């Protein structure tokens, strides 16, 4: 047994969740993702996203497993490029960004190879977990740096909380989906095996919301709001994982039921205290380091 009576799986999964939230925040303060030149992430995108969240699980359940893995792989590729282009571009300017594609494809290949390698589930999970953390950092930053408002992030989190109640607590949809995608490359679950037949995991969607909401709050209301939100998100995931690991709750917990209201409450609190900043105002107040801010707009 590990410290506090919690299993190694708990610490591994929590470590990855914390890494996603913290790396997402650090990336947000250091790099500019290549956002679309026209348009911001607005309420229309939130509505489309919610539609996709409702439909995607159904699609994955009816698609052949290889097709589901292919779709997931395409999404992960886009997210990895969002991370790798600015990082490699800043590290090896001016040609570093060109390495993003081969690097991203190499990461994808590693995930596929690990998943297909027989008899090494822990290795496959280790690779997949790392890939998912990078993907979460990329997508969260793409949304936040594309102008996602804290208001819209709170709306998204609130709506997903309702959806999670239905899909996870009332219906067997989430369990069926995780069961079908388990073992596939790019399976959307940061997980680690525990006792035989056991283990712990955090869904990709939960991790994404836990990462992106602090970024939106940081942009909108400042450093304190962002860091508080990040700390609360990690603490919430830690508490939920502990409930499972200690056996206090069995089955699957709809994590958004906790993360959603928490985000909405934070938004309302900060909004009560002041107006939401635009990206321009945020960057004026908290400029990025010049050498790193010169990436693609």
């Amino acid at each position, binding site marked *: 047994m590990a410290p506090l009576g919690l299993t190694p799986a708990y610490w591994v999964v929590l470590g990855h969740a914390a890494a996603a939230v913290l790396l997402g925040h650090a990336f947000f303060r250091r790099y500019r993702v290549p956002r679309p030149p*026209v*348009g*911001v992430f607005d309420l229309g*995108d939130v509505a*489309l996203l919610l539609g996709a969240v409702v439909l995607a699980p159904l699609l994955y359940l009816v698609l052949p497993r290889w097709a589901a893995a292919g779709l997931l792989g395409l999404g992960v590729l886009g997210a990895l490029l969002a991370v790798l282009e600015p990082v490699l571009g800043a590290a090896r300017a001016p040609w570093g960004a060109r390495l993003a594609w081969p690097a991203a494809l190499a990461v994808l290949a590693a995930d596929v190879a690990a998943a297909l390698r027989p008899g090494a589930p822990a290795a496959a999970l280790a690779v997949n977990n790392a890939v998912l953390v990078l993907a979460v950092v990329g997508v969260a930053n793409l949304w936040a740096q594309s*102008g996602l408002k804290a208001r819209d992030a709170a709306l998204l989190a609130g709506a997903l909380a309702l959806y999670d109640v239905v899909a996870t607590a009332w219906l067997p949809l989430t369990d069926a989906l995780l069961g079908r995608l388990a073992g596939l490359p790019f399976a959307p679950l940061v997980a680690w095996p525990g006792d035989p037949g056991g283990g712990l995991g955090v869904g990709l969607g939960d991790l994404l919301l836990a990462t992106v909401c602090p970024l939106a709050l940081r942009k909108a209301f400042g450093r304190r709001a962002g860091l508080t939100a990040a700390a609360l998100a990690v603490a919430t995931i830690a508490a939920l994982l502990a409930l499972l690991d200690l056996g206090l709750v069995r089955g699957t917990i709809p994590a958004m039921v906790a993360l959603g209201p928490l985000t909405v409450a934070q938004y309302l609190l900060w909004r009560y205290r002041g107006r939401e900043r*635009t*990206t321009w105002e945020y960057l004026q107040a908290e400029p990025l380091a010049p050498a790193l801010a010169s990436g693609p707009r």
Partner: protein
Amino acid sequence: MLLTGLAQLRLAASVGFGTPFALWSLDRLVDALLATRREFGAGAGGGAAETELLTGPALDEATRRDLQLRRFRQQATRGARETAYYGRRFAGLGLDPGRLTYADVARLPPTPKAALRDDPGAFVRRGAAAAVRTTTTGTTGRPTSVYFTARELEATAALSAIGLLVHGQLGPEDVVQVSTSARATLGNTCFARACARIGAVWALTGLVDPGLALAQLAEAHRVPGKKPRPSYLVAYPSYLGDLVELGLAAGLGPADFGLERIAAGGEIVTAGLKARARRLFGAGVAFDEGYAQTETWPLGGVRCAAGHLHFEPSWGLVEVLALPDAHPDAGAPADPGGPPAAAPGAPGVLVATPFVPYRDASVVLRYATEDAVRTLEGRLTCPLRHQPATSDVLGKLRLAVRHGPGPAGWTFPRQVLEALEAESLADAVPLPARCGFWAVPGGVAVEARVRPGYADRADARRAIGAQLEAQGVPLRALRLVEDPTRLRRPLPLRGDLREASFAPPVPPAPSAAADGAPRGVAAGAGA
């Protein structure tokens, strides 16, 4: 962001294939550009990716020619099938509009201005929901009418809004003063709708007494969220000249205005006019220059920093044809196939064919604009080098003078106006340059209005003559007058299309005169 991506794809389909615009996609893009500006600041935009929204990607020469030929065929087919004028034309020529080659295009005689002026209905497509008839100002003759659909105007206004936002020329905080003729309905309507879409305040002051217009430019307003004074002026160059002359004479300066940009068009914009305007409105004032005319609207040219006029290939085909051997008013017989293309570096007449989907109700193919330009020689190095280009407009061909053989035997209005409006002549020649010129044996005679006391000054004559010769005018006689009514053949100026007003001009007071003494402006001073 995702819906904006869809809207971009929809617009790209129209630009690439000539399918009709979907107004929802244009609206969505305007909203997205405004949201981008709000979120990321006024500096967001203007990059290559945003510019390609309107133009599509830069094309190589072969691809451009292929695209333009396909689009020409598309428009020619519509013209032949659906308009009375081109139905007759193609039947007479025995050409299949759907299979035209570039050689066939050259055989298609240019459409003369007179044909459109005499029967504008013959150019309207059967089934087109024509809703607006607009007319030209008729600077060089009887006004010409063109019909447009309401949808065309909506699309053009949205495209204008997108262009203004992409290039950072206008924002929701701007206050626009439009000092053009109130009868210029096409430009004014589209620009007003574009401003409204962006959220800028738009005021049509018209061509009232320049003193009144100047007072309105200087007047401060306290409208929440808007700049305190007009920041964007739309004016004909000659009327702008009136404003500049009046303002400088009254001792006004940059501190009295809030102007940031001036869109000057419809006439020749000279370097001297811009320099003198910057003395009044400030050195930082930017000029938006281009070329457009009612008959080929919305196909237009954009002036680059190198002074070329560039035409976006997906909007239409622009050709420069050789000038006639004789002056167009001389009644020389026209070449049945139309004149050949002008040689590199030679002057010629601009011939334009606007494409679908930009032009829908009225079809014009190879429309002879009667505007003279010069073709360019050598490889271009300017930022817009991937677009076809000509020199800036040299002036109306009907106002040009034929004084010798060959391409060099012409003198154009631009040469005379550039010389007379030069900043170095500001003491002698007031704005706008009022002048005339005509052929005399061996060259050109020029007459010009000068300030009181300058008509008989030898130094003024020498300076004016030197400027004209520096512009390539073969000067043989120079006549200077102080009273503009004594000009024998004055060039027409749009600024003279004055509109009456009940309001007496309110003189704007200078904010701080150099000598500390308050000075006022008398309406009409310097005119």
